[in-house]
């Protein structure tokens, strides 16, 4: 038995496949095809949770995505724990473990329910008016110390998982001719018409089964087939025609240029998840045309105590009955402003549910529903209303009254254990609105409907405001055919249609009860009542956005699917304005909540961001290198030998390089090949230096400025020929510099004949530095005369090394004689190996970025991004000589002449000499006195600081106001433990004459 309230037959569940599950520790049985909601209802469970603020007992309001009340946590294990799931969408599987939320100790007896007693205090926005506490309690406020923590603990819905999510998520990009969102009658017909016309079609639907409302239409036929059979036939044909069918897939975001994001659930419905199967998939679809067939959702009626378990939307009850074969109650009272609820009443009556009353709030309803109900002998009260309910954990009666113009006081209590309501239907225009289409308000039917589409898109069926099966099918077919570019759609033969139904009401039902004493809920999850909305209006919140924010209506996890139109109408009523005058809140992505992991997809762990490794990486690793992250690159940081820490290794690497030689993997340097007849002119405009006279075969250190005149990048530029330059950039700056160059080339200097190619990954670079560098390189090189005369410092030659092509630079970033060997990346490992063998044989070393930093600092060479911070000019760095002010123009030239860039008192690069052995901290501030009081102006800061193995002392570089003029002065570096004195010196600590690198 899959629940005592299960009908013996009917519906789309498989009674032969019972499924066991637990809810709050109690074991129940449902069957295949159930949702957690339908299975619990089949077992007579209506009370499933407590509301957010007042902890009111709550049951199922809806049967689908719009459910505001019935949230639960489903846990497979500690990590696979999902809070806040809508039970109406949780598919049942064998062994499912679910629990209710927001109640303690139990959902039947919840201490939090005292909030309901305190509710007169806790109305809209109460927290803005109190809890401010006295001004100050020891540096903090009572709010932060006392009230906020209490409120926080009380708020929040479910408990978040405690462990990392072990599942993984997939991502797919797709293109199609026609994307259809929504697989009900309209969407199926649209997809079929499109596919028949040969269009590549994708059809998605959030449900486990396609068919939408057709799944609850056992009595209707389409083209002579029962509705369900038509659904099956259509799906089969779509599959045959190659359409992509995506059940369990919601369209959640509609972006520009028909870019639509879909979220697909893949495994949550399975009892055992296949190993390695992705849990969900993000589809990023670019569609030529989009057809929205997202349906409509029923609205609750707003009357006092409309939130008790057992109070349900009429259409939801019909879904439970006809799709799941569950009787949601034994004695139903139906209160409605729309004809559709009659269908529910009749269906329930046929299933043996007693209809205690149908209360139609309309003074003069008409139509087949009413007649059929009367014919079936169901008691109907016309022009009635419900002014309250009785019951505590389940509704036990409805207070039925005659609706008069001013409100009703005389009521009769009609016993019932199921109270069904229908306020009419709200078209699901979420995606249409996200697509930037303008909604229009249809005054006659009091609905917001899609206006003119803003993109290549059409809305069909209930989401476009039409009603009835035939209308949905025909509209869908026409839109699908049009989207596929093949003319008209077809019309369908339908029986059991409900085309003539209509009605609906917005806002609260009138009641004569003391408004201070009753609560008529509008937003069920956030516990917002009609009273709250009126209070907000009274307090001057006149825009609907203000009302929403002040009351939190529409801000719960259902995003106001059942509440927004009612709150809008109540606000409009209180303001005495029309709905369009009050405005509409924005429909934001996502349509229903989407898992973070689905967005993140495969971007996790090592795939979080690509790891860039140089071709020498593995050899360096084999040599014991430790690596540091520099942007996406892994760079060899230092090469410790047994027992060495960073400092010991670096000291050894520096000493060995300066005494013998070192080799260094500089492959991460950015490289851009600048080619074309105007290449030199282009560089003239992008760099401060003059390039015209640089002879082929020579290189020069180039400085690049940004528009405001500050140093942006630097690097050696070699001229290979009249029209060809090999430009190097900093490691981190490579993409930025290429963008910057392209930007200027394309927008400012389109007349220049220049082409830019990033060759960072084509050329690997091995720096060989030190007095023996030439001896190491020479035997391996062919075709290049390495003598000092033939190949001086700052020269570049093309030739071969180890038999492979090389661009050999004679440059130094250490202050020693040096070469930078550029070889095609594929040969880099072999060349490194050859160079390393010779280096090692001579007693040299491999060194990493840290030793490189130390050596360049000893030599006073700057690192862009360390000595500079985007406020530093060439002159600040002592590099004023690199700026060819005589050039007609270059990027940043005009800015360099700005008053503040030439004003006295700018910070200038200096060295700092420190007594003792303390290495300063990079970033430490510099003051003129040892004991600076708080608020003292810093005259500079330390940019680089190392222990210098060469000098045998700590060294530092710093930017100091008027620094060069302060040479010899003592300045102070205030630290928490006291200031450190330092003497201002020149920035070059090693070989100031440059003898070594010219050797």
């Amino acid at each position, binding site marked *: 038995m899959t629940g005592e309230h299960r009908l013996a037959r009917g519906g789309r569940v498989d009674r032969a496949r019972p499924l066991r599950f637990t809810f709050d520790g109690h074991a129940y049985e449902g069957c295949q095809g159930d949702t957690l909601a339908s299975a619990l209802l089949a077992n007579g469970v209506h009370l499933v949770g407590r509301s957010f603020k007042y902890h009111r007992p709550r049951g199922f309001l809806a049967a689908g995505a719009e459910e505001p009340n019935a949230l639960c946590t489903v846990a497979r294990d500690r990590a696979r724990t999902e809070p806040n799931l809508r039970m109406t969408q949780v598919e049942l599987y064998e062994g499912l473990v679910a629990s209710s939320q927001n109640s303690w100790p139990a959902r039947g007896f919840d201490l939090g329910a005292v909030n309901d007693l305190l509710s007169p205090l806790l109305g809209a926005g109460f927290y803005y008016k109190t809890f401010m506490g006295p001004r100050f309690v020891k540096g903090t406020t009572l709010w932060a110390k006392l009230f906020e923590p209490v409120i926080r603990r009380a708020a929040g819905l479910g408990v978040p998982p405690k462990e990392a999510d072990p599942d993984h998520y997939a991502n797919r990009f797709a293109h199609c001719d026609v994307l259809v969102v929504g697989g009900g009658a309209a969407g199926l017909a649209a997809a079929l018409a499109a596919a028949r016309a040969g269009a590549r079609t994708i059809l998605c639907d959030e449900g486990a089964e396609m068919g939408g409302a057709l799944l609850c239409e056992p009595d209707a036929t389409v083209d002579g087939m029962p509705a369900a059979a038509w659904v099956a036939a259509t799906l089969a044909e779509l599959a045959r025609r190659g359409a992509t069918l995506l059940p369990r897939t919601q369209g959640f975001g509609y972006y520009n240029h028909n870019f639509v994001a879909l979220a697909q659930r893949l495994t949550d419905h399975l009892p055992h998840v296949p190993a390695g199967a992705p849990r969900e998939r993000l589809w990023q679809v670019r569609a030529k045309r989009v057809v929205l067939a997202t349906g409509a959702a029923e609205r609750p009626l707003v009357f006092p105590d409309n939130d008790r378990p057992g109070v349900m939307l009429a259409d939801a009850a019909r879904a439970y009955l006809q799709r799941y074969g569950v009787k949601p109650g034994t004695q139903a009272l139906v209160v409605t402003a729309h004809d559709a609820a009659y269908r529910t009443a009749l269906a329930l009556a046929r299933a043996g549910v007693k209809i205690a009353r149908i209360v139609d709030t309309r003074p003069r309803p008409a139509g087949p529903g009413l007649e059929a109900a009367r014919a079936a002998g169901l008691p109907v009260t016309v022009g009635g209303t419900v002014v309250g309910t009785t019951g505590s954990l389940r509704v036990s009666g409805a207070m039925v009254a005659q609706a008069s113009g001013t409100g009703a006081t005389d009521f009769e209590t009609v016993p019932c254990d199921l109270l069904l309501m229908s306020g009419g239907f709200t078209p699901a225009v979420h995606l249409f609105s996200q697509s930037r289409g303008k909604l229009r308000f249809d005054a006659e039917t009091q609905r917001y409907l899609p206006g003119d589409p803003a993109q290549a898109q059409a809305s069909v069926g209930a989401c476009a405001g039409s009603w009835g099966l035939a209308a949905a099918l025909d509209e869908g077919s026409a839109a699908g055919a049009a989207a596929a570019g093949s003319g008209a759609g077809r019309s369908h033969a339908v029986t059991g249609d409900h085309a003539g139904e209509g009605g609906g009401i917005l806002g609260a039902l009138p009641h004569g009860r003391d408004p*201070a004493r009753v609560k008529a809920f509008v937003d069920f999850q956030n516990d917002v009542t009609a009273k709250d909305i009126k209070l907000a209006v009274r307090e001057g919140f006149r825009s609907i956005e203000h009302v929403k924010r002040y009351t939190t209506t529409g801000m719960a996890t259902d995003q106001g699917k059942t509440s927004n139109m009612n709150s809008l109408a109540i606000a409009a009523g209180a303001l005495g304005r029309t709905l369009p005058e009050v405005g509409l809140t924005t429909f934001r992505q*996502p349509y229903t909540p989407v898992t973070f992991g689905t967005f993140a997809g495969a971007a996790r762990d090592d795939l979080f961001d690509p790891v860039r490794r140089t071709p020498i990486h593995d050899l360096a690793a084999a040599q014991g290198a430790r690596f540091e992250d520099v942007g996406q690159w892994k760079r060899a940081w230092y090469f410790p030998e047994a027992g060495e820490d960073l400092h010991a290794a670096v000291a050894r690497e520096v000493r060995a390089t300066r005494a013998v030689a070192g080799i260094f993997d500089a492959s991460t340097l950015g490289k851009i090949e600048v080619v074309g007849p105007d290449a030199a002119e282009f560089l003239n405009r992008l760099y401060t230096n003059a390039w015209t006279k640089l002879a082929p075969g020579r290189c020069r250190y180039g400085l690049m400025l940004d528009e405001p005149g500050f140093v942006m990048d630097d690097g050696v530029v070699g001229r290979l020929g009249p029209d060809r330059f090999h430009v190097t950039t900093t490691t981190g700056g490579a993409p930025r510099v290429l963008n910057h160059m392209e930007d200027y080339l394309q927008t400012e200097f389109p007349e220049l004949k220049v082409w830019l190619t990033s060759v960072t990954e084509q050329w690997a670079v091995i720096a060989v530095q030190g007095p023996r560098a030439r001896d190491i390189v020479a035997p391996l090189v062919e075709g290049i005369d390495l003598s000092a005369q033939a190949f001086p410092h700052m020269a570049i030659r093309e030739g071969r090394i180890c038999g492979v092509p090389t661009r050999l630079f004679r440059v130094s970033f250490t202050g020693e004689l040096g070469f930078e060997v550029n070889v095609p990346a594929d040969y880099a490992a072999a060349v490194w190996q050859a160079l390393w063998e010779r280096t090692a044989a001579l007693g040299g070393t491999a060194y990493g970025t840290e030793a490189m930093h130390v050596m360049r600092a000893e030599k006073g060479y700057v690192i862009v991004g360390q000595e500079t911070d985007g406020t530093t000019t060439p002159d600040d760095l002592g590099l004023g000589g690199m700026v060819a002010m005589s050039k007609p123009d270059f990027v940043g030239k005009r800015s360099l002449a700005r008053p503040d860039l030439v004003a006295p008192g700018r910070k200038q690069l200096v060295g700092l000499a420190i007594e003792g052995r303390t290495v300063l901290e990079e970033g430490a*501030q510099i003051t003129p006195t040892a004991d600076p009081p708080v608020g003292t102006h810093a005259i500079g800061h330390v940019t680089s600081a190392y222990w210098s193995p060469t000098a045998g002392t700590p060294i530092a570089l710093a930017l100091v106001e008027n620094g060069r003029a302060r040479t010899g002065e003592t300045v102070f570096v205030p630290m928490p433990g006291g200031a450190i004195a330092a003497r201002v010196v020149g920035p070059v600590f090693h070989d100031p004459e440059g003898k070594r690198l010219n050797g």
Partner: protein
Amino acid sequence: MRFSLANLIRQSFAGHQGWPAQWRDAAPKPAYDAVIVGAGGHGLATAYYMAAEHGLRNIAVVEKGWLGGGNTGRNTTIIRSNYLWEESEALYNHALTLWQDMSQVLNYNVMYSPRGCMMLAHNIHDVQVFKRHVHANRLAGIDNEWLSPDEAKAFCPILNTSEHIRYPILGATLQRRGGVARHDAVAWGYARAASALGVDIVQNCEVKGITRDASGAVSGLDTTRGPIATKRVGVVAAGNTSHVMAMAGVRLPLESYPLQALVSEPVKPMMPCVVMSNTIHAYMSQSDKGELVIGAGTDAYVSYSQTGGLHIATHTLDAICELFPMVRRLRMLRSWGGIVDVTPDRSPIIGKTPVPGLFVNCGWGTGGFKATPGSGNVFAHTVATGEPHRINAPFTLDRFRTGRLIDEAAAAAVAH
């Protein structure tokens, strides 16, 4: 009526019928002594301080939509003052000081919550830059501490400090007085307090033109609710500033970008503070309601569209899941965007313009919420007296001519 527990209790017996409108729904008068354009937090705070501290009561704030509906109502409310340059330190710390007792001063619970704002370092360059901030802030008397990865983990236990992630956390700075506040309450609190002092807050009133007299000085505004005569105008229009200033022929060095944010469904408390990572582009805190509040950097292209691209959200969330791997199963509830006005040096422009009588307060970009009280306070001084306050004196428009930039982005590339 004052907001207090006593009045709340009293009103709860009276069905809350006695609460008056929090601000008057003013219609524009023909003339004012001064008009502020833009009823965001900054504009409302400006008007409040003009009334409260400078005695100007015949003034108005005009707003094209609903008050607080711009970036003030869209931001992720991170508050901190541990900026690098002395000029910024003074400005943001002035604001942070005003946050401390704003609720009491305005008699509106703005829920300022000094939960601590932590910024993560993922590489050696980050470490250098953050330590520079710590040292600079210490000299300026601004709290900002350096935390080891273990200390960071102790402060925020859900942080993934494993050494084996793609960009391991090498340390963090923490400003304990940093935190969050309730954005709407800030706008409403200032609106209510300003209105009570006589300031007219005129909503649904879009400025369409700025009129000038023969001397070139401001003489009034053309609005969708009619002309308003005034000799002093303060423009505080965030992402729309370029448009408004163009009405007076003033060009500003501003670019407008979409900036997105998102929240999760509410869950029980899991996140005790604010954590920001600039290197991997994401930050997160948890609201009092239980939603995780998440954001990142701007879209790459200038635009006035408040819908940003999906790829920004995906990158933001992959970073968040990397830092907090247990949130991967939580769900995005809502996402949205605002238009932020960005200056070349990422610092605001607060002061005079070449047009006499016209003042501007803009360029707050991705990080101006935290400055709301301080910005309003010094801008009120500027508009009321015609001269900048000591604190906003460096934030001139002229600095882009002289080159005296206050480049927070270049120094650290820190947003928010």
